[in-house]
Every structure is written in C-alpha cells, then in structure tokens.
C-alpha cells in the first residue's frame, strides 16, 4: 500500500462494455453509434408482443473471448434470465441478463505499474456475463416541456458485464486497472471501450477498513464503513477522482457517526464531475427486488472444450504477454515495452516493422518514443494516419547509422518528413542538405587546421577538448557536416602531423 492514511480503501468495480458486433444481441438492428433517434429499432428490441429474441453468435463468442482473456472458468452450461423492473428506457419491462448460471466466473486481471507507484495487484473477477443494454432517456429541462424523450436505438445492444472482487486498494490502482482492462479488450477486439459513446461504463463500490485499537471492554478489530456504490463517472480520471473524494468523505463520516456496514442499506451516490463531489441518490426501496426468472424465449447454451479452444486460438496476444515478447525479442527494457504496448496494437505493429527494417530494437524504440509518439501526442494523431511509414523512418535511421547526418539533423529531417509526407531524399534535397562525402570532410578539416594553429598546438599538448572550437567553425562552413566525424578526422590529422 502506498498510502499513509489511517484506513485501507477497499474498491470493487463493475464494468459494462459494449461488444463489437454489427447487430444487437437478439435482433438484426444495427448497433452503430450516432444514428437518428429510433431508426435502429424493430419489434424485438421495441419489446412488441409476439416478437422473439435470437442470440447473436458473434456477441456470445466475443463475450467468451473476454472471459477467457480474464482467465475465467467457462461454464459448460449457461442460460439467461429476466431481470424485471419498470423504466421507460426498458421497453419489455425486463432486461435479459444472467442470474444464477452466468457463462463464466472466477477469473483475474493483474495490473503492474512500471514505475512502481503501487505493488503489482491481481484483481479477482467474480463473473463475466452477457446481457442487453437499455435505451436512452433524454430530459431537457430548458425546453420546459416536462417530458422525457426516449430513444431505443441502444436497447438490446450486447454488453459484457465484468464484476471484480473488492481487491483494489487505492483510486490510482483502480484507474490503472481500468486502463489495463480497456487495453486488453481493445487488443482482443472485444470492444472499442469508447466511454464518450457509452461503449464502456464503470460503477465502483467503495468502503473503508479502519483499525480500531483495543479498549478496556473490547479487543482490537477492523471496522468497516457502509459500502457506497458510485455511479455517473464518465472517464477513468473521474473514477479516480470520485473514489478519492468518496474515501475522504467516508473517513469524515466515520469520525462523526461511527456508522458501520450492515446497519444501513447500501447507498448509491452519483459523481458530480464539475462540482467534484458525490451526491446521495434517491433510494428506490423496491429496486432490489428484480424477481429474476429463467428467460423462456431463449434456450440454454452449452460450451464445449473444442469451442473454447477455437476461440482461444483466434484471440491474438494479450498485452501482458506482448510486453514480455517485445522486451525479449527486441532487447528493450520492460519499461519501454510497456510504453509501446500501452499505445495499442497499431503502434506495436509499426514498431515491429520498424525494428525489423532497422535490425535493432533499441534504436527503433527510441525513435518511436522520442519522435513518433511525441508528434502523435502533439498533433493528437493516430498511428494509421501517421505520414511517415516504418520504411521511410527506417531509411532515415539507416542514413544516421551510416553517418550521413547526426541525430539532431535527422530530427529536423524527420519533422519535415512528417509535415510534407515526402521521403528522406526529397526532404534532404529540399532543405539544401546533402550528405557530405568523406573527401569533402577531410578537405574541410585540413582547411580548418591550417587556419587554427593555436587549437592544433593545444590538442598536441594534450588538450583534446580544444578541438571543439573546430566543430563550430566547420558547421558554419558547411551546415551538413557531421560534428562527430569532423572531430574524429581533425584529431586523426593532428596525430598524423606528429
């Protein structure tokens, strides 16, 4: 634990991710984001009488992939249940979800901070199950109509629900773990995890464990504050802020009330991002009574070992093992591998292509981090749209290795390649840079030595650093010379003079 608070913060997360299917879970309506309201609806997802759901195979397979990636045990037999409640965005009056026989349970996902901000944490997964989303309610107070508008385009969208054990111990850890989960699901093509478009939502359960010292009448013990569920967090940063706020709030409340878990019902609080606080939400006392019962309109699903094998086979390498692969295959540090992998599959592909062409991982990794990534961040660009492809960058790096230009010159060339989208030779010609031949460098050095007898004398008497004065002059005469080369040749020539 990295905190020095007088309590331990206990955090569990409940994450919903939208699966990357073309159609909804039980009907052929599109799941595409951003359509005009109620244009992606049909009798099934509107819950009209007589309509029947049929399970989307791709949704099931993607959910299975997520569960396998999270090291869950896959149930050989699974079924769906109706979760009954009334809300205008839920047209059937029930959500098709999974209750007592979810298709997977008991997994884990580890999060490691490469900078060691917290200890590696293995977070248990209670269950992963497959369910449908509700629609969207919109209430416009400004319009003053007093009506809520309902768009059912989202209704029936396939969601994977991922519930963790209360294994996280700080808001920072929770945020880092969510980043790792998102990275994993995006790598495996399970979900795009886009929070702005509602493809990933997080609720957090949090309470405090507070050591209470022994008193005359009682032994020392751990007091647990009532669990609070936080909702309405719309970024991982919000999750971290909300948890930080909530832990502090519970500590204050504990000091004032000494209220413990179990004596009050679980409270739900909403995160108010602009205000930076959580607020108690109205408690609907009947809301916990969902009267689950088996969904009669869907038959159960059995999963064979062969099916699991085939899903596993097509999964691709998850980030956790890709980091290790990159580090060992390309001889780069664990930290560098982490930086590259955390940027996503496309950047890793770019790196591997580059490293293969350059024939060296470390140099490729340095260029990726110091140049490619920096420019991508500055321009908010994507790897796929990056104007310099691995072949072009490998070309440039090759020229640097050959000694055609020094690294700082190469950086200028690279910047120009990015802006213009033109290859090295074009850019070099356009910038008036030309690789200086060795003969030219030698001629230039001779000229400089003749003009600077004092420096020559100094070097001869053992002050090699005096040669630095020659490099400045060389640059003035020809901006394209490689300073290292000038220095080496000058020293050689002086030595030859005897």
């Amino acid at each position: 634990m990295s905190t020095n608070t007088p309590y331990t913060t206990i955090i569990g997360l409940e994450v919903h991710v939208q699966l990357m299917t073309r159609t909804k879970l039980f009907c052929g309506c599109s799941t595409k984001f951003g359509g005009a309201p109620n244009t992606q609806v049909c009798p099934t997802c509107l819950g009209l009488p007589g309509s029947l759901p049929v399970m989307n195979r791709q949704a099931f397979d993607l959910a299975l992939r997520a569960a396998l990636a999270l090291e869950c045990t896959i149930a050989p037999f699974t079924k769906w249940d109706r979760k009954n409640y009334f809300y205008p965005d839920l047209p059937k009056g029930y959500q098709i979800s999974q209750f007592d026989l979810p298709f997977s349970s008991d997994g884990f996902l580890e999060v490691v901070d490469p900078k060691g901000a917290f200890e590696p944490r293995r977070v248990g997964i209670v269950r992963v199950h497959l369910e449908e989303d509700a629609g969207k309610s919109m209430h416009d107070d400004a319009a003053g109509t007093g009506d809520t508008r309902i768009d059912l385009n989202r209704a029936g969208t396939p969601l994977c629900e991922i519930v963790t054990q209360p294994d996280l111990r700080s808001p920072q850890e929770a945020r880092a773990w969510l980043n790792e989960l998102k990275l994993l699901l995006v790598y495996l093509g399970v979900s795009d995890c886009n929070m702005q478009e509602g493809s990933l939502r997080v609720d957090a359960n949090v309470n405090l464990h507070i050591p209470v010292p022994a008193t005359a009448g009682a032994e020392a013990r751990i007091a647990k504050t009532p669990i609070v569920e936080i909702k309405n967090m719309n970024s991982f940063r919000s999750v971290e802020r909300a948890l930080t706020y909530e832990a502090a709030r519970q500590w204050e409340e504990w000091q004032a009330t000494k209220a413990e878990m179990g004596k009050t019902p679980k409270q739900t609080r909403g995160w108010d991002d602009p205000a930076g606080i959580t607020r108690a939400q109205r408690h609907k006392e009947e809301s916990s009574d969902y009267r689950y019962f088996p969904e009669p309109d869907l038959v159960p699903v059995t999963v064979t070992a062969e099916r699991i094998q085939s899903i596993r086979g097509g999964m691709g390498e998850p980030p956790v093992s890709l980091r290790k692969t990159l580090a060992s295959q390309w001889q780069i540090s664990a930290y560098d591998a982490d930086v590259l992998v955390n940027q996503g599959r496309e950047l890793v592909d770019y790196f591997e292509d580059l490293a293969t062409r350059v024939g060296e991982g470390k140099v490729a990794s340095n260029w990726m981090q110091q140049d490619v990534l920096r420019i991508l961040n500055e321009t908010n660009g994507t790897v796929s749209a990056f104007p310099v492809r691995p072949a072009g960058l490998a070309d440039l790096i090759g020229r640097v290795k050959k000694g055609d230009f020094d690294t700082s010159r190469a950086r200028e060339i690279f910047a120009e390649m990015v802006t213009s989208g033109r290859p090295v030779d074009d850019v070099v010609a356009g910038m008036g840079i030309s690789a200086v031949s060795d003969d030219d460098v030698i001629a230039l050095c001779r000229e400089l030595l003749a003009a600077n007898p004092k420096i020559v004398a100094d070097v001869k008497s053992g002050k090699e650093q005096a040669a630095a004065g020659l490099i400045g002059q060389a640059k003035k005469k020809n901006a394209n010379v490689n300073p290292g080369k000038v220095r080496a040749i000058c020293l050689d020539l002086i030595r030859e003079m005897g």
Partner: protein
Amino acid sequence: MSTSPQTLTTKDVAKVGLLARLALSEADLERMAGELSKIVGFVSMLGELDTADVAPLAHPLDTQNVFRDDVPAASLSTAEALQSAPRHDGECFLVPAVLGESSAA
C-alpha cells in the same frame, strides 16, 4: 420434502402489486390475497415430490445453442416504430419526466 400451503397476506399482495405497478384497492388486496394463496398452495403440491435425483430444468424445450449470424436486418422506420406510442414527437417516445439518465445496470 414437504411444504405446507402458504398463505399470502394483503401486505404481500400489496408489495407484488407495487412491483407490477398495479394500483390495488383494499378490496382488491383482500380478494387477491385469497386467490393467490390458492394458486401458491396448488403449485406447492410439487414440493411433495422427491426431486433429489432430478436435474434442474433450465428450459422446457430439449434444444440448445440456437444462434443467429451477426448480419444486419431491416429495422422499422421511425414512423412505424412510433405509431403505437401514446405520445411521441416524431423522433422519440415521450413519457412523463423521469429522473436520471438511464436505468442501465
């Protein structure tokens, strides 16, 4: 296993009524407490059977693994989708104001 016939109180019925969003009068509650008790009592006869060796049945059909391919099908037009709605604005269904963004859970 034996189960004695259960009797539902008017309080039980009121709770079920609330969950089902039914406004039940006192007279309704009295009448339904009696009727529902009879139904529950009838069903509880099943409890007299020895089911120790019977596997739980998740679905009455002897079918499993029914899937469809992830292929888009035609949706309804917005006008068709909204045509039976008590109130709409041509784009969305209109309902009395509800609090909160979504029920999604």
